[in-house]
């Protein structure tokens, strides 16, 4: 039963990941990523970490993906690899996987070949995670909250319509607006 669940979720996660990189339309990429995230949440449940699975579904598949969908709404995709990239990129990807597999399966991590420690009933539930977050990892917890605040303020500054105190309408481009692009020869 456990194995069946694992392989189903693994197929979902891998299929979603390949969907992300294969789809031409970014909107479909986002949908494929949602499939991937739900499969990953199932894998987290298999690993008896309920809180991480719930956070995955609520934070990622809920909030972050809505953000993506809003931004994708008006965008278009670019699918023209530079010459040779199409052959070089899969080669490098496979090389990275081989390297990671060698690292995982070789001598240093042979202790992996076991089912893991026996865990108590409350392992990974919100109470246990909250206790760890507020007792042992209080400083990282607060630091991450400050980081979230900074990121939100930064995103508002980046995406705001105003520039140098004046209203910046997209219909009348200022002369220096195109300076950021370097058109390749």
């Amino acid at each position, binding site marked *: 039963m*456990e194995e069946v669940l*694992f392989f189903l979720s*693994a197929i979902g996660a*891998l299929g979603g*990941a*390949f969907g*992300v*990189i294969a789809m031409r339309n970014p909107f479909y*990429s986002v949908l494929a*990523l949602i499939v*991937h995230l739900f499969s*990953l949440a199932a894998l987290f449940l*298999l*690993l008896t*970490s309920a*809180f*991480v699975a719930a956070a995955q579904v609520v*934070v*990622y598949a809920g*909030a*972050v993906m809505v*953000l*993506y969908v809003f*931004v994708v709404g008006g*965008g278009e*995709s*670019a699918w023209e690899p530079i010459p040779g990239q199409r052959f070089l*990129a*899969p080669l*490098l*990807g496979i090389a*990275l*996987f081989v390297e*990671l*597999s060698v690292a*995982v*399966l070789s001598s240093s*991590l042979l202790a992996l*070949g*076991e*089912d*893991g420690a026996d865990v108590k009933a409350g392992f*990974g539930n919100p109470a*246990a*995670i909250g206790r*760890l*977050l507020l007792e042992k990892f209080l400083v990282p917890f607060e630091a*991450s909250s400050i980081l*979230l605040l900074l*990121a*939100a303020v930064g*995103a508002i500054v*980046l*995406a705001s319509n105003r520039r140098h105190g004046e209203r910046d309408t997209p219909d009348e*481009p200022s002369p220096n607006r*195109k*300076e*950021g*692009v370097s*058109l390749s020869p």
Partner: protein
Amino acid sequence: MNTNWFVVLSALLFSTGALGILLRRSPMVILLCLELMLNAGNLALVAFSRMVGNGQGQVFAVIVMVIAACEVVVGLGLIVAIFRRRLPLDVDDLRELRG
């Protein structure tokens, strides 16, 4: 369930994300592939946490999720800014950091 399987799956997912970053040129899809790589790292963290038998790896995974959310927010803000200034959404053209 053997921890090996989870770690190998995590390696596969990480390689897939890296492949996407190497292959695609739209900054949007590159952000999505960064998400894939961070999630692969999360899977390995949670698997090791289960193997060792304490919850600290899961706390680490939650913090990684926070970092990923920050990265998404800033990245999407940049993409909106690029889009609003009518610049091409292509990482090969957007290679200079001039305002």
